[in-house]
């Protein structure tokens, strides 16, 4: 027990990085995903092509490689990020691509009549999106977004590759130093607690949307 208590501060420091990366990515990647999906559905062909290319790259290469490229590769052309910033940029860029594809599917499933109805009521584009379309799209995409959100919390562990001390790395360091698996078991329990809380929150959000069909 005394050993467990002794490694808690190190693990909590790791949890802090993990949660900061997770929240930072969610806050930025969801709105960017919505904007990107609108770009994918726009009539501007060059924009669509650029966004499709971006999504192809982000979904077609491993996140680990993207992390390495952003932290170690970009300095070659003079773009230098701190470790945390590099991790955040990579996660946001990667998850924006996935969210964009999910939202694109959501937007495409809204009947044309909803847009027309808003149009004859003279709602402008943003009012239509804000009050009519995005709430309906959100309800449709929540299960898929939920899966990605759970994946994200686990994917934050990949930032060890650029030397950032998140939760798994903190557990690994303690495990190697003290030659015991206890830190890694604790890391597993902490991940389960975090994903459990996120799943609970997602269920509440789903429940909130279930009052209309």
């Amino acid at each position, binding site marked *: 027990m005394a050993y467990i208590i002794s490694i808690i501060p190190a693990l909590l420091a790791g949890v802090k990085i993990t949660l900061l990366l997770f929240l930072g990515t969610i806050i930025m990647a969801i709105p960017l995903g919505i904007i990107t999906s609108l770009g994918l559905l726009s009539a501007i062909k060059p924009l669509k092509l650029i966004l499709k290319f971006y999504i192809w790259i982000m979904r077609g290469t491993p996140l680990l490689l993207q992390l390495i490229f952003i932290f170690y590769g970009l300095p070659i052309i003079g773009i230098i990020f701190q470790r945390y910033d590099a991790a955040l940029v990579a996660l946001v860029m990667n998850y924006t691509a996935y969210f964009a594809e999910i939202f694109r599917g959501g937007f495409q499933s809204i*009947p044309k*009549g*909803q847009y*027309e*109805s*808003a*149009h*004859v*009521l*003279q*709602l402008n584009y943003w*009012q239509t999106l804000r*009050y*009519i379309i995005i*709430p*309906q799209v959100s*309800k449709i995409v929540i299960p898929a977004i939920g899966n990605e959100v759970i994946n994200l919390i686990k994917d934050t562990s990949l930032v060890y590759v650029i030397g950032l001390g998140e939760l798994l790395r903190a557990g690994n360091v303690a495990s190697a130093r003290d030659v015991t698996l206890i830190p890694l078991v604790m890391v597993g329990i902490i991940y389960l607690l975090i994903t459990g809380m996120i799943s609970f929150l997602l269920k509440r959000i789903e429940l909130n949307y279930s*009052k*209309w*069909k």
Partner: protein
Amino acid sequence: MLELKNITKKFGSKIILNNLNLTILDQQILAIVGSSGAGKTTLLRCLTGLEKIDAGHFYWNQREFNPIEQNKNKQIMGVVFQNYELFPNLNVIDNITLAPRLVLKNTPQELQTAVQKLLLELDLTGKERLYPYQLSGGQKQRVAIARALAMKPQILCYDEPTSALDPALRNKVAKIILQLKNNTGMTQIVVTHDMEFAKQIADRIFTVNTLAN
């Protein structure tokens, strides 16, 4: 008075409306009848700005107007869609008040007075907090009428208002349309394939052959 002069609408090489001229007098109920695919709904969509015409002009009280860019302070056309197109994420009251609140900038007091009157007239009292999926077909249609009327249009258009209704509800819609005429003198355009219904409500009937010119 609404005037349509030399309206032409094509889909590709297919001419749907060919040099159409039509005048609709104030307080008149015009029924446009005809078989499916004859162009009656297309005409309604052109009038309400949902389709762009290829040639021709629209005049409202001798002043030309473009249905695609209606004046927000004085909406000319209101529409009740065939399948109502209520917003599923909004309850009855929000479906009715969203556009007047955002577009007409009605105050809460103005909204409340107007909405209570509409709910009473359209037999929707007590349904304020229900969502569209909780309403019957007839109730949905009455909410769609209330939503269109809340924007204070000069002309109210209906697309196939009886297509999904049983005979009893059909008579109820006819009563509402006639009541609107008697109480407010509103000009109304009703697209329908139902000749009996057209005879029941209309001051004037246009058949597809008239439209085809």
